C-alpha cells in the first residue's frame, strides 16, 4: 500500500506541470513591415494554454498588428506563428480555432442579435436544433436574454460588446483575441466588463490574448502582461513582476506612477555574499543608493522609485545627499500624495497614508528609500539596441 503512494503523487505532479507549461500560441522572430514602417520587431512570444495574456502599450506600438497576425488578418514579413503547434500560414482564418473580438465590435448590422451570435455555428453547418440551444445558453452567460430579435443599432455600447463576445465565444475557440474590446465604454461599465470578462475566461477556460493601452486594465485582468514599445516586446511577466521589476525605463514609467533618476555609478560596495552589491549613484542633485547586480562603475543607469516606496526624513540619511522642499499635498482617499521639489525644480511624488502627521508646506526634507526598493535599469538599453541592429537586416 505505501509503495503506491509516491507513484501516485509523482504522476499527479507531473501532469500538473505539463498542463501548466503547454503552449498554445507561439511567435518566433516575428517581424512586420508596412512600407517603410517597421511595426513589429523580432517578436518572440509564447502564450500558455488557459492564460490571460495582455499586450500592453501606447498606440502605434505594434500590439494590434501582433494580434492581427495571430488572427491571420496580416501576414508576418518574417518569422513564424504557430497556433496549437501548427503554423498558421497554411490555414485560412476560417479554418482556425481562434476567434476575435473587434474594437469596433464589427456586428453585422443587417442581422438580428440571434443571427449575429449564430453566424459562426451556421457557417460550420452545425445542426439547427443545436444552434438554438447553444445560442440560448451563451446569451444567458453574457446576460442578453430577450435581445434575440433586436438589431445591433438598437443596442447600447455595453450590450453590443456582450454580443461581440458571445458571437466569438459560441464557437468554443481555443484562443480568443480581444482588440481593446472595452475601449468605447464609459469607465463604470468598463470596470464591470473587466470583471465579467475575467469571470468568463475562468469559467470557459479559454486562452485570452487581450490588447489594451490601459495599464490599470492590464494589471487588473491579466495573468501575464507583455509590454510593447515601438514594436519591441520590452518585458513580459506577471503584473507584479512588471510593476516591481520593470526591465526598461519605458516599462517603469508606463506602468503606474514612478520617480525616475538618471545618473552614473560612482562606487560599488560588496557587503556580504548573500545580498546584492550596493551602488552609489551620482545624479543631478546629489548622491543616491540602490542595489543590483550586473552593473559596472562609471556606468550610466536609470533608477526608478515608486511613490509608495519613496520616503522623506527631517535629517539627512546615510548614502543620500538629496535635499528637497515640500510643495503640496493631494488627498486621494486612503493615501496622501505628497509633492516635494528638488533644487533643480523636478518634482518627486511620495505617497503617505492618510492620518499621518504632515510637515508644513515649505519644510526642507531629505528624500530617501530602502536600497532594495529602487529599481536599477541599464540606460543603454540592450533590448532596444539589439532589435534595431537586427531591424536593419530585414
Amino acid at each position, binding site marked *: 500500500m505505501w509503495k503506491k503512494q509516491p507513484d501516485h503523487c509523482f504522476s499527479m505532479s507531473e501532469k500538473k506541470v505539463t498542463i501548466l507549461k503547454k503552449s498554445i500560441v507561439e511567435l518566433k522572430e516575428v517581424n512586420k513591415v508596412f512600407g517603410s514602417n517597421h511595426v513589429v520587431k523580432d517578436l518572440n512570444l509564447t502564450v500558455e494554454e488557459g492564460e490571460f495574456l495582455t499586450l500592453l502599450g501606447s498606440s502605434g506600438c505594434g500590439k494590434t498588428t501582433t494580434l492581427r497576425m495571430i488572427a491571420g*488578418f496580416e501576414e508576418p514579413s518574417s518569422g513564424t506563428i504557430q497556433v496549437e503547434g501548427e503554423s498558421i500560414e497554411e490555414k485560412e482564418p*476560417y479554418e482556425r480555432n481562434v*476567434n476575435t473580438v473587434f474594437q469596433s465590435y*464589427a456586428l*453585422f*448590422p*443587417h442581422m438580428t442579435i440571434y443571427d449575429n451570435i449564430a453566424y459562426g455555428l451556421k457557417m460550420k453547418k452545425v445542426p439547427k436544433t443545436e444552434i438554438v440551444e447553444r445560442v440560448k445558453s451563451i446569451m444567458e452567460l453574457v446576460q442578453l436574454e430577450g435581445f434575440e430579435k433586436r438589431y445591433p443599432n438598437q443596442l447600447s455600447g455595453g450590450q453590443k460588446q456582450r454580443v461581440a463576445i458571445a*458571437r*466569438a465565444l459560441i*464557437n468554443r475557440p481555443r484562443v480568443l483575441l480581444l482588440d481593446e474590446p472595452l475601449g468605447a465604454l464609459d469607465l463604470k461599465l468598463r470596470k464591470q466588463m473587466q470583471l465579467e470578462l475575467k469571470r468568463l475566461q475562468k469559467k470557459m477556460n479559454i486562452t485570452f490574448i487581450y490588447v489594451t493601452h490601459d495599464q490599470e486594465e492590464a494589471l487588473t485582468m491579466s495573468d501575464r502582461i507583455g509590454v510593447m514599445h515601438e514594436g519591441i516586446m520590452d518585458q513580459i511577466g506577471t503584473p507584479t513582476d512588471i510593476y516591481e521589476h520593470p526591465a526598461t525605463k519605458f516599462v517603469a514609467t508606463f506602468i503606474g506612477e514612478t520617480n525616475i533618476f538618471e545618473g552614473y555609478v560612482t562606487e560599488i560596495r560588496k557587503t556580504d555574499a548573500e545580498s546584492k552589491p550596493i551602488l552609489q549613484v551620482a545624479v543631478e542633485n546629489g548622491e543616491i543608493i540602490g542595489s543590483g547586480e550586473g552593473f559596472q562603475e562609471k556606468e550610466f543607469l536609470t533608477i526608478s522609485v515608486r511613490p509608495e516606496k519613496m520616503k522623506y526624513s527631517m535629517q539627512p540619511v546615510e548614502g543620500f545627499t538629496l535635499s528637497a522642499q515640500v510643495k503640496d499635498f493631494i488627498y486621494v482617499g486612503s493615501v496622501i500624495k505628497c509633492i516635494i521639489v528638488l533644487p533643480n525644480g523636478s518634482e518627486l511624488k511620495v505617497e503617505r497614508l492618510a492620518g499621518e502627521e504632515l510637515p508644513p508646506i515649505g519644510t526642507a526634507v531629505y528624500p530617501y528609500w530602502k536600497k532594495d526598493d529602487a529599481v536599477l535599469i541599464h540606460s543603454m538599453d540592450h533590448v532596444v539596441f539589439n532589435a534595431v541592429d537586427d531591424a536593419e537586416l530585414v
Partner: protein
Amino acid sequence: MKKHTWKSKTLPALIMVGPVSLWMILLVAIPLIYVVIMSFCGLDQYYNVSYRFTLSNYARLLNADYVKIYVQSIGIAFLTTMLCVLIAYPFSWLIARTRSRHKTLFYMLVIIPFWTNSLIRIYGWRTFFGTTGWLNTGLEALHLISEPVQFLFNRGTTVLGMVYCLFPFMVLPLYTAIEKLDGNLLEASADLGARKAATFMEVVLPLTSGGIFSGCIMVFIPTLGYFFVSDILGGGNSDVIGNLIERQFQSGNNWPLGAALSIILIMITLLMVRIYQKLGGDLDSLGV
C-alpha cells in the same frame, strides 16, 4: 420694423430658392402639365392637335403592336441592367477597395467618357462595327473573314450600346455602397468561419443591395427611353418605348399619342421607384 424682418428673413430665402423654383416651374412643371393635357387631346383632319377631351390615345396604347414593343423594351432593359450589374460589381469592388494611389484615376476612367456627348460615342460604335469599320477591316486583314459581316442592327448591338452608355450609372451607386462597407465585417465573417463565397452571400450582398438596386433603377429606366441607341445601333429591329414616343412626335405627327406614351413611361418609372422604396431603398441615393 416689419419691413426689416421681411428683408432679413424672406428676401434671402427668396433669392436662394427663387431661381430654382422658377426654373423648375418653367422647365419641369409646366411642360409636364402640358404633356398630361396633350395626352387627353385628339387630332383634327389635318393632323393638328384639337383640344377636346378624349381617352382614345390611351385606348390605342393597348394595340398589340405597341404591347409587343413594351415587352421588347422591358426585355432589353432587363438584359442591359443584368449585364451592367455583372460587369460593374467586380469593377466597383476593385476601385472602391483598392489601396492603390491610382484609385482616383480608375474612377476618372469611368467618368471622363461621360464628358463627351453619348450620341457621338454611339456613332463611334457604329463606325467600329460597320461593314467598312475597324472590326471588319481588321478581320479581313487577318483573313478570318472573306467578306464584311453585318454586326450591326440587331438586339445584341443595341444592348451593347445601352450597357456602354449607362454603365457609369451602375458604377456610381455600387461604388458608394461598397466603399461604405466596413472592412472589419469581412474580417469578422472570415474569423467566424465563413469562406469567401459565404461572406459574399451573407454579408457583402445584403449590405450592398441598396447600391445594386439604385444602380438597377438608374439603368433600367433610361434604357426604356434611349431611342437613339436603338436607332443608330439597332436599325429599327430593337425598338424601345422611347422609339415609339419619338416617332409619334416626328414622322407620325401624332403628339397626343406620343404624350400618352410618355405618361406610360413616367408611370413605369414611378412604379419602379415605388418598389425600390418598398424594399427599403433610400430616395437620396437615387439622386432624385
